[in-house]
């Protein structure tokens, strides 16, 4: 149970919508916006050197696998940071690209640099980074399109800042390469699955297409069925069409459109991330939990806080609630997902 987050950037309309997610802009530049993604959908554009985004690690751990598709769209490759690992507000380590298109990893000092890799502009690369923080037995490995390009190194000082923690993952640091990012994942070392490199993955987003087993909430606008009032796809209309409930235990479940693999065969489903978009209408202690129903078995996520403004929150289901094994395409297509209210 170690996939912490996955992100395809598919559902965001603009910067304001993106900032409702767990991602936060890291500098005054915000984000450029979104463009067509690697295999359709959307990709995140960070086209100014003062634009970067931060993902807060949910466990402030010492060992992570980060995967993300990157494309440089500038006129030429320019040196800068692609993935930056930070403790508090201080860099623990950085995966950089050089002006020659090589990758280097720098902690206190440069730990390694590729030779002959030669990344070029206008090409999608799937870059994965594994780091174990330690002052003496740190580990490091970098893969590009599934092939190891740095390491695997062991016995390294990967801990630039005293106190071995990573609190946030930064995408883009002083890059002038105008990068696009897509298909992000973050794993840690816990559990029995998703605790290693996943390889080149696609994060596909599917949206509600029908009401599910239970729809206890009251629909406001949005057609004849609750699923039609869900904010999905284009710009969320917030309080224009929505489903609401204030009763603890009220559930919403929806069926979803089938996976397509974005045109590719689906070999493995590493996890399902259920993202809900919600707010509370008045003060009071309420929580929500993501809800998944497979066959007749249901599993709820952890309590999530609810504020007065809309926000996106994701819960990862790494295994099929029905039987506890790995998800497959058919099980996902048949499953229902939604939300429940807690007090």
């Amino acid at each position, binding site marked *: 149970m170690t996939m912490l987050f996955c992100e395809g950037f598919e559902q965001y309309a603009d*910067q*304001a919508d993106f*900032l*409702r*997610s*767990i991602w*936060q*802009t*890291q*500098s*005054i*530049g*915000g984000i450029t916006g979104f463009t067509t993604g690697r295999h359709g959908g959307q990709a995140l554009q960070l086209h100014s050197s003062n634009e970067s985004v*931060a993902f*807060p*690690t*949910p*466990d*402030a751990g010492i060992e992570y696998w980060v995967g993300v598709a990157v494309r440089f769209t500038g006129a030429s490759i320019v040196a800068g940071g692609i993935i930056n690992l*930070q403790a*508090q*507000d201080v860099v623990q380590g950085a995966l950089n690209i050089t002006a020659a298109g090589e990758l280097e990893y720098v902690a206190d000092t440069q730990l390694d640099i590729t030779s002959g890799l030669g990344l070029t502009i206008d090409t999608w690369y799937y870059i994965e980074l594994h780091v174990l923080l330690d002052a003496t037995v740190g580990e490091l490995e970098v893969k590009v399109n599934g092939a190891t390009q740095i390491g695997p190194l062991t016995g390294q000082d990967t801990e630039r800042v005293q*106190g071995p*923690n990573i*609190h*946030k993952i*930064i995408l883009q640091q002083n890059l002038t390469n105008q990068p696009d990012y897509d298909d992000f994942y973050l794993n840690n070392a816990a559990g029995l699955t998703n605790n290693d490199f996943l390889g080149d993955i696609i994060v596909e987003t599917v949206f509600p297409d029908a009401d599910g087993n239970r729809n206890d909430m009251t629909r406001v606008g949005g057609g004849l069925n609750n699923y039609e009032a869900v904010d999905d796809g284009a710009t969320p209309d917030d309080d224009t069409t929505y489903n609401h409930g204030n009763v603890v235990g009220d559930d919403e479940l929806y069926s979803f459109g089938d996976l397509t693999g974005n045109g590719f065969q689906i070999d493995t489903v590493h996890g399902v991330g259920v993202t809900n978009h919600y707010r*509370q209408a*008045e*003060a*009071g*202690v*309420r*929580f929500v939990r993501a809800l998944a129903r497979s066959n007749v078995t249901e599993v709820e996520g952890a*309590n*999530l*806080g*609810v*504020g*007065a*403004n809309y*926000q996106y929150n994701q819960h990862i289901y790494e295994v099929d609630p029905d039987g506890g094994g790995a998800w497959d395409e058919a099980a996902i297509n048949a499953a229902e997902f939604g939300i429940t209210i807690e007090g």
Partner: protein
Amino acid sequence: MTMLIMEGFEGYGDVADVRRRHVLIQSGTPTLETGRYGGKALQMSTNNGMYLQGFGNPTTFVIGVAIFMSGTSIATSDVIRTIDGVTDNLVLGVYAGGMLNISRANTLLGVSSVGLRLNTWHYLELKGVIDDSVGTYEVRLDGVNILSDTGQDTDSTGNARINLIQIHRQSSGAELHDDLYLLDSAGLTNNDFLGDIQIQTINPDGDGNRNDFTRVGGGLNNFEAVDDGDSPDDDTTYNHSAVLDEDELYTHSALSGTFDTVYAVMVRNHVRKENAGDRSVRAITRSNVSEAESALDPLGVDYRYIDGLFETDPQGGGAWTETRVNAAEFGLTIEA
């Protein structure tokens, strides 16, 4: 009886008016903006700040405040500083990216894994026990515990207390603040997290059981001369008296919305004295036929806001209900 401070910022006309109740750090210009659920909120930006003081010297405290950070990024800054004298004890801060951190003075104690989001109202609560070996802290964001520990040194001075709190320090972005409360751990009620609360302000709408003061301007009834709503008109319309034990009581508008719990009623009076000589006031609450008075507050020659907190209904001594609040009368009495 452990609610120490409540603040919804609703009754203030402008920032100068806020300064009649709280000390605001003067650098920069705080402003009053639209609040979380309507009403008002206090916005502070670079080098602004607001102090909470006059709440004694609690060892254990809980503070809650709604906070909204706007702009295109969250800047590293302090959100809540708890202070003993001039020395920081627990300080709750935020890093760029939104994760919260807690420290004792400059010693980092913990970093949260989730944090604040831009352009979003969050309800943030901090509970602390100040001790040099068995101190504790717990931070809740929208009701969820996101950062906590026990057995910590949370005491920079060795006095096991706080007596000053600063809200907001050194952020380069604008932050709105609303619906603030402060508790200690004494008593049987309001001695632990309240969760996401709303502070609603209601204003006088009729004279009450006794109106002993003399009205100056302001219509036919004393309640019409009360400074409520927008900027106070001070000595233009007011009610006054120089006689000890003279009282003013008013009925007021009803609460609006749906309530699970009423944690307390705070009676805020806007007062000054006209001449030298010791004079004080107490807030009064009258519920059915039972009355209660708050602690004595001495007056100065300039207007300021004085709060009296009533955690229980004087009629029966139980928790307030919406109905009982709406039927009650509130005001003040003159003391030596």
